């Protein structure tokens, strides 16, 4: 766009009819597209949306928009990111009401009526502005039994696993989780039940339950069948729909439901 105006300007100068400086400015700013960006500002005690005009660019991500605001409009804006390529799981926010990785969400995919709303992840306490407190999410990861219970010591040879067993094939569909909490923010059961372990933690528990190297799968079944366990899930599938990695926590939770019920009927617990 700008090049068209500079071309026009050059032509006008050439024929000695250059418009005044204010006219050029007006033309330039009209040619530079700006978006209306509403950003949630505040902390644990409350807050609200603040509005910014942000210049539109080619191939711009939501994280670019947040960074622009922080660098050029308000340096006090707090947010979190690290890898900016969808590996670290730290940049997730609510974008127009939907949880997303901001680093892998293109503006042109979500821009509606030239406006975007960016808020901290749902279902988690806010630290400040766009930075949500991930502690409850990680605590539940541990509470769901998502820790390996070893069968061997480091002095024994490494156990060889067959990658083609049905258990391993199923496990493979659940291990690419990067702990971003997008599924956790999408889940209505998490919002209505503070104890619910949530999709990511339960999916992690499921993959460990399937691991033949795990010493005590029953510990996992106990951990996932309590008050906040897998049976709280209503199979709404928002976790699966929104997971940016294309994982399927709803399927993993259904697996845990089957395993816990089977263990119950086998006279287990």
């Amino acid at each position, binding site marked *: 766009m700008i090049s068209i105006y500079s071309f026009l300007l050059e032509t006008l100068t050439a024929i000695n009819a250059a418009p005044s400086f204010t006219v050029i400015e007006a033309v330039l700013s009209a040619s530079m597209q700006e978006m209306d960006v509403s950003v949630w500002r505040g902390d644990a005690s409350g807050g609200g949306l603040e509005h910014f005009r942000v210049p539109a660019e080619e191939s711009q991500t939501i994280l670019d928009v947040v960074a622009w605001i922080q660098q050029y409009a308000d340096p006090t804006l707090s947010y979190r990111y690290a890898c900016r390529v969808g590996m670290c799981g730290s940049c997730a926010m609510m974008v127009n009401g939907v949880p997303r990785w901001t680093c892998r969400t293109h503006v042109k995919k979500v821009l509606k009526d030239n406006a975007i709303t960016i808020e901290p992840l749902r279902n988690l306490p806010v630290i400040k502005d766009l930075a949500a407190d991930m502690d409850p999410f990680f605590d539940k990861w541990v509470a769901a039994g998502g820790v390996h219970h070893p069968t061997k010591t480091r002095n024994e040879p490494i156990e060889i696993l067959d990658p083609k067993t049905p258990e391993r094939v199923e496990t493979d569909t659940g291990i690419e989780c990067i702990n971003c909490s997008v599924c956790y923010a999408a889940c*209505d059961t998490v919002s209505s039940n503070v104890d619910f372990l949530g999709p990511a933690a339960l999916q992690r528990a499921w993959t460990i339950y399937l691991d033949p190297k795990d010493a005590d799968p029953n510990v996992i079944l106990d951990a996932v069948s309590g008050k906040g366990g897998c049976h709280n899930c*209503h199979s709404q599938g*928002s976790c699966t729909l929104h997971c940016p990695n294309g994982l399927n926590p709803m399927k993993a939770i259904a697996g845990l*439901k089957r395993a816990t019920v089977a263990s119950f009927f086998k006279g287990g617990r």
Partner: protein
Amino acid sequence: MIRPHRSHPLWIAYLLHRLSGLGLALFLPVHFYVLAFALNEPERLDGFLRFADNPLVKIAEFGLVFLLAVHVFGGLRLLALEFLPWSPRQKTLAASAVAAAFLVAGTFFLQAV
């Protein structure tokens, strides 16, 4: 308005299941109360059945049969999702549950009029 993170078929299926479940919980006590007339006060039951011949009531009955059918098929769908081997066709199954419920309720309606 359904909030953006919820606007997808399986969430709507969940909403339908909850509303139909609550609808049934409200309706069934009334239903049993009226049925009890058959034993205690047959004249009152007859009076009620005449009232039930009213076309508007027939339409309402269509709604109730639909509620029951959509809850039963939706419930069977959930049980299949949770207890049978995983199938990736969940949206199709949810839509089929609603279609089957329309079929049952529609057939009931045509029988009733």
